[in-house]
C-alpha cells in the first residue's frame, strides 16, 4: 500500500523554525524561573541588589515575552511604572523641568519599549491581545487621569483642550492612548461593543477626569464611537428598563451610563455634531423601520435586530435629549422634518405596544423637551398643530383611520404642552410677585426656552391664529396668551399689535379683544401701549400699505364698536373701545400724516380712523395745525380722487366714503377749537383757490403774470432756468400797484395768448365738488366752537353761519384775490378813483373769472354778516371792472356778456345778503338780464354810490339776539332815495319789460 505523503521539505523547515525560535527566546527555563523570582521580589536574584524601576520594568517585559502565564501580573506591574512616569512628568512640570527631568526621561524609554512590545503583540494577534490591552489601557488611563487630577499643573477638568494637551504630551498616557487606539481599530472589525462598553464604564467611573480620553478616542473614530456609544447606551437603557426613572431620570444606579453617553456625545458635539445628529436620526429612523423590511445584512449583533431594543429606542432618544440640551438641539431641527405621515404611522404602531404609564411618561418627557427646546420651537409647533388639526368633517368618516390615531396623539401632546406651559408661566409669575420684595431674586425666574424662542415668531403665530382654522386657532390663541403673559408687556403689546394689524374681519378682530380680555386681568395699559407700538411701527415704516390700511381700519372698527354697542351689554368691549379711542386720540398727529399716504387705501383708512376717533382733551397747537393742514389737504385729494374715479365701482364708493369721512373730520376738527377752525377755513379757502385744486371747482388757471404758459408736460420742473425767466416779458420787475401798468395780452400778430390748457371737468362733478366744499365750509362755520354755547332753537334749522368764521373766510378770500394790500380799506372811494386801481381790479376780476367757486364762497361770507365788509376790496375791484365792462360794452343786451351779467347779479346779490346794500338796491340784479349794458352800468353805479356813501363797516352791524344774527339797521344810514333814482329811471325806460319788478324797488 502506498502512503500519501507529499511533505518532503517539511522536516527542514521544521528544524530551522525550531532553531530560530530557540535563539529568539534566549532564556532557559532556569533563567526564566530566576526572572520570575526577581520580578516577584524586586531584587536581582544573581547579584542580590534591589532592582531599579527601570530594571524591574525590563524584567517584566522579558516575562511578558516569555512566560504567557505572567501577562496579567506584568500588565499590573506596568501600571505602577506608568503611574511613576506620570508622577515624574507632572513633578517636572511643577518644578519647571529643572530637577527630575532625568528620571522621567529614563522611564520614557522603558515606556517606549513596553509600547513597542504591546503594539507588536497586538499587531501579530489582535484577536487575543486587543481586548486585553484595551481594557487594561482604558482602566489605567482612567486611574491615572483621576488620580493626578488634583495636581497643581493639571488643568481643571472642564478645560478639555488643555487637559488633552497635557496628557498627550506625557509619554505614558500618550502611549496608552495609542495602544488603545490600535486595539480599537483592530477590534472594531469584530466586537466593537466590548471596547466601547469598557470605555463607557471607565468614563462613568472616572468622570470628568476621563473625558479627555473619550474625546480623543471619539474624535479619532467619530463614526464608530458615536454609533457604538449610542448602541451601548440603548442596550443599557433597555436592560434597565425605563421604569425606575422619573421625568429627569436623575436617580438610580442606571443613570450614570446614559449620563456618560450624554457626556461623551456632548464632547464630540463640538467637532462632530453633524455625525452625531446623523447617528441619532438614523437610530430614530431605523427603530421605526419594521423589522420585516430590515435586510438580513445588518449583523445579528446590532441593536436593530432586537425588537425590544428597537422599541426602547424612541424613549431612549427622548431621555438622551432630555439630559443634554446639546444633543436635543442637534436633533430637534431635523427631527420635525422627518416626521412625515408614514413615519408617524410607524411611530404610532411602535408606541401602541407600550404600557399606558410609560406612554404617559414619554408624553411628559416630550412636553418637557418641547418646552425646553431653545430653537426650532416654531417648527415644532407648526408641525404639531398641522398634525393635530382634523382634516375635515367631511373626510373623516365614522371609522377612525390610522391617521386618526396619530392625530389624536398629537392633539393630546399639544394639549398637554399647553397645560404644561400654562403651569410654567403662571408659577413663574407667582415667583415674580415674590421677587418684588427682593429684586435680586428676579433672575431666578425660570426661563422657558420654547416661549423664549416663540417670542420672535409672534407675527407668524398671530397670522396662523387669525386663519381661524378649527381647533388650531384655539390652541394658538391660548399659546399667544401664555406667550404674552410670559413675555410681559412687550410681548403682549406686540401680539396685540400684530393681531390688530393682521385681522381682516370682525371675527378675526374679536380674537384680539379676547386676548385683551384675558390679559387685562394681569396687565394694565395694554391698549395704549399697543397703540403706541403701532404708531412706532408707522413711524419706522415697517408696515406695508396693506397692513397699514388694515391696522387703521381695525382701529377704526374698534372705536366704532363703542358707538354701535352703546347701550348694549358688551361692557368689556365698549370699555375697550373707549380705551382704544383715547389711545388713538393721543396719537392723532401721528396718524394724520397717513392721510396723505400715497396709497389711497391707506389714506382712506386713515381718514376713517381719524373721523371716528375722539379728539384729545388737550393738544399742543402745533399738532392741531398739523392735523388740520393734513385734513384739508386730504380733503382736496379725495375730491380729486372722486372726480377721477367717478361714482362707480369700489374705488368710487371708497372715494365717496372718504369724502364724507373727510368732511366729518374737518367739521369735527373745526368745532374743536377756534384755532383749528381758523386754520381749517383758511386752508380750505386757500386750497380751493390753489392752482392745483382750482379745476376741481371749475376754475381755470389764469395766467396772472402774462408769461406764456409752458406746457407742463414739456417742462415739469418749473422755473428752473433763470435765463428763461429773464426772457419773459415783464417778469423781472413787478409793476403791479405802481403807476406803471403793463398789460400783456399776447404777441402782436399771434392774437391773444392762449389762456389755459387745463382740462375741464365734467360740470356735474364740478357742481358736486363745489357743493361738497360749501357744505364743509358751512358746516365748519356753523358748528364752530365760537358759538358752541348757543344751541339752535330749532334742530331742523341749519345753524347760522358764525360771523367770526365767516370773517376768516372773508379775510382769506381777500388775501387770495387781491394781489396787494394797497387800497385795502373798507370804505369805498368815488367811482372815478377806480382808474388808479385798474390793474388790481383786472386781477381781481380775472380771479373771479378763473374761480367760479368764489361766488359761492362770497355767498357764504355774506351769510355770516358782517363778514362781507372785510371783502370790501375784492367787491370793489370786481364792481369796478364790471362797471368798466358795461360802460365799454357795445352789445345790444346785457345777456350778450353772460359772465359779466352773472357776475354782476351775484355780486349785487351777495352784497344784499351781506347787508352792504339795502334791500331796494340789492334787488336790482333781478332786472339785469332784461337791460342793456349801459343800463346795467347805471344800476351798478348806483350801487357803487350807495356803498361809497354808506361805508361797509362791521361796526354798523348789531347783534340781534332774537335772530341770532348780526343785522344792519339801514335807517341809521343816509337816505336811500337818492340812490334809487337811477333805478326808477331805468324802470321807467323799460317799464314794458320791468313792470313786474317795480314792487321790488319800492322804498
Amino acid at each position: 500500500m502506498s502512503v500519501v505523503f507529499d511533505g518532503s521539505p517539511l522536516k527542514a523547515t521544521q528544524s530551522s523554525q525550531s532553531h530560530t525560535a530557540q535563539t529568539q527566546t534566549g532564556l532557559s527555563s532556569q533563567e526564566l524561573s530566576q526572572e520570575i523570582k526577581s520580578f516577584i521580589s524586586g531584587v536581582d536574584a544573581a547579584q542580590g541588589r534591589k532592582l531599579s524601576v527601570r530594571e524591574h520594568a525590563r524584567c517584566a517585559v522579558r516575562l511578558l515575552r516569555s512566560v504567557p502565564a505572567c501577562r496579567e501580573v506584568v500588565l499590573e506591574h506596568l501600571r505602577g511604572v506608568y503611574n511613576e512616569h506620570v508622577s515624574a512628568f507632572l513633578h517636572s512640570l511643577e518644578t519647571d523641568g529643572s530637577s527630575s527631568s532625568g528620571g522621567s526621561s529614563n522611564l520614557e524609554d522603558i515606556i517606549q519599549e513596553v509600547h513597542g512590545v504591546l503594539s507588536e503583540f497586538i499587531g501579530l494577534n489582535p484577536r487575543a491581545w486587543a481586548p486585553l490591552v484595551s481594557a487594561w489601557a482604558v482602566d489605567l488611563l482612567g486611574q491615572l487621569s483621576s488620580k493626578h487630577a488634583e495636581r497643581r499643573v493639571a488643568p481643571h477638568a472642564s478645560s478639555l483642550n488643555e487637559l488633552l494637551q497635557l496628557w498627550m504630551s506625557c509619554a505614558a498616557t500618550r502611549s496608552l492612548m495609542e495602544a488603545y487606539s490600535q486595539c480599537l481599530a483592530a477590534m472594531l472589525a469584530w466586537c466593537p461593543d466590548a471596547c466601547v462598553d469598557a470605555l463607557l464604564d471607565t468614563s462613568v467611573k472616572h468622570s470628568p477626569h476621563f473625558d479627555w480620553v473619550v474625546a480623543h478616542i471619539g474624535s479619532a473614530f467619530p463614526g464608530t464611537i458615536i454609533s457604538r456609544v449610542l448602541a451601548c447606551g440603548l442596550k443599557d437603557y433597555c436592560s434597565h428598563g425605563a421604569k425606575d426613572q422619573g421625568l429627569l431620570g436623575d436617580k438610580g444606579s442606571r443613570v450614570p451610563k446614559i449620563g456618560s453617553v450624554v457626556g461623551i456625545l456632548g464632547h464630540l458635539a463640538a467637532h462632530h455634531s453633524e455625525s452625531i445628529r446623523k447617528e441619532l436620526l438614523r437610530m430614530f429612523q431605523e427603530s421605526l423601520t419594521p423589522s420585516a423590511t430590515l435586510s438580513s445584512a445588518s449583523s445579528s449583533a446590532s441593536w436593530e435586530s432586537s425588537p425590544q431594543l428597537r422599541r426602547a429606542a424612541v424613549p431612549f432618544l427622548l431621555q438622551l435629549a432630555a439630559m443634554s440640551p446639546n444633543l436635543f438641539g442637534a436633533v430637534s431641527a431635523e427631527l420635525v422634518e422627518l416626521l412625515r405621515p408614514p413615519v408617524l404611522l410607524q411611530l404610532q404602531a411602535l408606541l401602541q405596544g407600550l404600557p399606558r404609564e410609560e406612554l404617559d411618561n414619554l408624553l411628559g418627557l416630550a412636553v418637557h423637551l418641547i418646552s425646553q427646546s431653545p430653537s426650532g420651537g416654531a417648527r415644532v409647533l407648526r408641525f404639531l398643530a398641522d398634525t393635530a388639526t382634523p382634516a375635515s368633517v367631511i373626510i373623516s368618516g365614522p371609522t377612525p383611520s390610522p391617521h386618526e390615531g396619530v392625530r389624536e396623539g398629537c392633539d393630546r401632546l399639544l394639549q398637554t404642552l399647553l397645560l404644561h406651559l400654562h403651569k410654567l408661566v403662571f408659577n413663574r409669575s407667582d415667583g415674580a410677585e415674590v421677587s418684588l420684595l427682593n429684586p435680586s431674586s428676579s433672575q431666578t425666574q425660570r426661563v422657558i426656552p420654547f416661549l423664549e424662542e416663540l417670542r420672535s415668531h409672534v407675527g407668524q403665530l398671530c397670522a396662523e391664529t387669525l386663519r381661524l382654522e378649527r381647533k388650531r386657532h384655539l390652541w394658538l390663541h391660548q399659546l399667544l396668551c401664555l406667550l404674552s403673559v410670559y413675555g410681559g408687556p412687550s410681548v403682549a403689546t406686540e401680539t396685540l399689535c400684530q393681531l390688530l394689524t393682521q385681522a381682516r374681519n370682525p371675527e378675526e378682530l374679536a380674537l384680539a379683544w379676547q386676548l385683551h380680555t384675558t390679559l387685562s386681568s394681569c396687565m394694565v395699559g395694554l391698549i395704549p401701549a399697543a397703540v403706541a407700538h403701532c404708531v412706532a411701527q408707522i413711524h419706522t415704516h415697517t408696515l406695508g400699505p396693506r397692513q397699514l390700511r388694515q391696522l387703521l381700519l381695525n382701529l377704526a372698527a374698534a372705536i366704532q364698536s363703542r358707538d354701535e354697542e352703546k347701550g348694549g351689554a358688551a361692557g368689556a368691549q365698549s370699555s375697550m373701545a373707549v380705551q382704544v379711542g383715547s389711545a388713538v386720540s393721543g396719537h392723532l398727529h401721528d396718524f394724520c400724516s397717513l392721510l396723505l399716504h400715497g396709497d389711497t387705501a391707506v389714506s382712506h383708512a386713515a381718514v376713517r380712523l381719524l373721523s371716528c376717533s375722539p379728539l384729545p382733551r388737550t393738544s399742543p397747537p402745533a399738532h392741531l395745525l398739523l392735523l388740520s393742514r393734513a385734513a384739508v389737504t386730504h380733503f382736496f385729494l379725495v375730491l380729486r380722487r372722486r372726480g377721477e374715479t367717478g361714482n362707480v365701482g369700489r374705488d368710487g364708493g371708497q372715494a365717496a366714503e372718504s369724502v364724507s369721512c373727510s368732511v366729518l373730520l374737518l367739521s369735527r376738527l373745526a368745532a374743536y377749537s377756534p384755532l383749528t377752525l381758523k386754520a381749517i377755513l383758511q386752508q380750505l379757502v386757500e386750497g380751493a383757490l390753489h392752482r392745483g385744486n382750482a379745476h376741481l371747482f371749475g376754475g381755470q388757471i389764469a395766467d396772472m403774470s402774462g408769461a406764456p404758459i409752458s406746457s407742463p408736460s414739456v417742462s415739469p420742473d418749473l422755473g428752473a432756468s433763470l435765463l428763461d425767466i429773464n426772457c419773459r416779458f415783464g417778469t423781472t420787475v413787478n409793476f403791479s400797484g405802481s403807476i406803471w401798468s403793463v398789460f400783456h395780452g399776447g404777441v402782436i400778430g399771434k392774437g391773444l395768448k392762449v389762456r389755459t390748457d387745463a382740462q375741464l371737468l365734467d360740470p356735474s362733478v364740478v357742481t358736486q365738488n363745489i357743493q361738497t366744499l360749501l357744505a364743509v365750509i358751512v358746516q365748519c362755520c356753523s358748528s364752530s366752537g365760537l358759538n358752541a354755547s348757543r344751541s339752535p332753537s330749532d334742530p331742523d334749522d341749519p345753524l347760522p353761519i358764525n360771523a367770526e368764521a365767516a370773517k376768516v373766510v372773508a379775510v382769506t378770500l381777500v388775501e387770495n384775490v387781491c394781489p396787494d394790500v394797497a387800497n385795502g380799506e373798507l370804505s369805498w372811494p368815488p367811482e372815478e378813483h377806480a382808474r388808479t386801481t385798474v390793474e388790481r381790479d383786472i386781477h381781481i376780476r380775472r380771479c373771479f373769472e378763473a374761480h367760479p367757486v368764489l361766488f359761492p364762497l362770497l355767498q357764504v361770507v355774506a351769510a355770516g354778516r358782517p363778514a362781507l365788509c372785510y371783502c370790501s376790496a375784492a367787491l370793489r375791484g370786481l364792481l369796478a371792472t364790471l362797471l368798466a365792462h358795461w360802460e365799454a360794452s357795445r352789445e345790444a343786451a346785457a345777456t350778450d356778456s353772460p359772465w359779466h351779467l352773472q357776475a354782476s347779479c351775484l355780486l349785487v346779490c351777495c352784497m344784499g345778503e351781506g347787508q352792504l346794500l339795502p334791500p331796494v338796491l340789492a334787488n336790482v340784479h333781478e332786472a339785469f338780464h332784461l337791460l342793456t349794458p349801459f343800463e346795467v352800468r347805471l344800476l351798478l353805479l348806483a350801487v357803487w354810490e350807495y356803498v361809497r356813501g354808506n361805508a361797509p363797516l362791521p361796526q354798523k352791524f348789531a347783534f340781534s339776539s332774537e335772530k341770532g344774527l348780526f343785522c344792519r339797521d339801514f335807517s341809521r344810514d343816509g337816505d336811500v332815495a337818492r340812490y334809487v333814482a337811477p333805478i326808477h329811471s331805468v324802470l321807467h325806460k323799460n317799464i314794458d319789460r320791468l313792470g313786474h319788478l317795480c314792487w321790488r324797488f319800492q322804498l
Partner: protein
Amino acid sequence: MGDIRQSLLPRDVLSAAKELLYHLDIYICNLVQSGRQPPQVDAKTLELVEEFILHAPKDRNAPARKMSALQELQLLEIMCSCFQEQSRDTVRQLMFSALFHIQGNQADESRMVLLGKLVSMAVAVGRVPILECAATWLQRTHRVYCVRLAQVLVDDYCSMVPGSVPTLQNIHSMSPRFCCQFITAVSTLYDLSSELVPPLELLQMIVSWIQEDPRLVLITFLNTPLSGSQPISSLDVTPLGSLVRWCVKAPLAYRNEKKQVLANRSADSEPDPRPLFSALHLSVLQVFMLLPNVLNEKGLFGRLALLQMESVAALTSDLSRLLDQADKHAHTSAAGAQVPPQLALDRLAQALQVAMASGALLCSREDLRPICSRLPHNNLLQLVLSGPVMYYNNIHTPPLAYSPHAAHSPIASHAPLPTRSPHTPLTSHAQYPAQPFMSGMPFAFRPGH
C-alpha cells in the same frame, strides 16, 4: 486539618494560601505514611483549599477575597517550587488532585483558571513534576476540562506570545506523558470543523513530535496499567482516533479554509498546512504499524480496540456530510475539485486498512461496509472493503465475537474469552464500552469567542 481555618482567617490572602499549602503538604505526607488505602483527602481540607487558595465565595454575604495578580504569581511560584521540591510522587499526585481535582462545584471555575496558569508557567519554567501531575490529571478528568486546559496552553503559547512556541515544544522532552495527553486533548479539541482548526504552529509542533518519536502517542497507553480507574468521559487513551480524523478531514477542511485565506491575505506568510497533514498521516500509519508488537507485549492484541468502531462510524458520516457539501460547491468550481475528496477517501481507506491490520480496529470488512456505504466511490476504499483476502500478519485468528452486534453486549462477548492476565482489566474496561463519539452533536467545549 479543619481547625487551622481560624488561624488562616486573619491572614492576608497570600500568606494564608502559603500557610495552607504548607499544612496541606504535611497533612498529605502524614496521610501517605499512615498507609491507609486508598489515601484520600477529606472534604474539610478540600473546602479549605477552595476557600483560601481558589477563593471561591464561601457564602453570599461574605465578600470574596481576591488576590492581586502579583500575589497570584507569587502563589504560583510557591506552588511550582513546592511540587518541585516534593520528592515523593504519591504525595505530589495527591496534593495536585487535592488542589485541582474537579469537584463539580462553583470553585471549579477558579480552579481551572489557576490550573491553567500553573501548567502554563510550569511549561515556561520547566517544572517537570507539575507536568507529570498534569498528565495524570488529564487522564482522570472529564474531557471538557481537559480540552480547556489544552486551550489555555495553545492560547498562551501559540497565539498570545509570539515566539514562545519552542517553549511549548520542549514539553516533549520534559514530560512525554504530558505531551501525549496534550496531543490527545488538542486533537479532541480541534475537530477540524468550521472554527476549530488548529493553529499552524501547533500542527507543526505535533507533526514534528510524532515524526521524531512515533511511540509518543502511545506513551499513556503504555504507561497506564489498565487499572480500572479510567473515569467516565475522559480523554481517549491514545490520540490515534482523533489524529486519523484530522488527516482524513484535512483535505476538505483546508480546502474551505484555503479559499478564505486566499481571500483574506495574500497567502505569503502562511505556509501550506497540507504537507503537514500528509506527514502526520504517515506518522499515524507508522504508529499503527507499531501497534501489533505493543499490543502483543501487553497481551491485548485483538482484545482492546484503540480505534473504536463508533468513532470510525462517526468519522465516515461526518465525511460523507462534508463530501456532500463539497459536491454542492463542486458544481460551480473547476475540475480539480475532485482531488481533495479523493485524497480524503484515500486516507480513510489507508487508515482503515492499516488499523484493521494492526489490530487497532477490531472489526471485519463486512462490518465496515454499511458504515462506508454512504461514501462516494473510491478505488482504494473499494479495494479495502472488498479485498479478496483479509491479510493478518500474526498468528491469531480474529475473534469473531467482535462483531458490531457484539459490541453492544460486551459482557456476553467477553465472558467466554479466556483471560490470560491475572487481573481483570478487561471486564472493568468493558463496563465502559465505548465512548459515544459525538461529532454530529454541537461541540460542548467550543471556544467561547
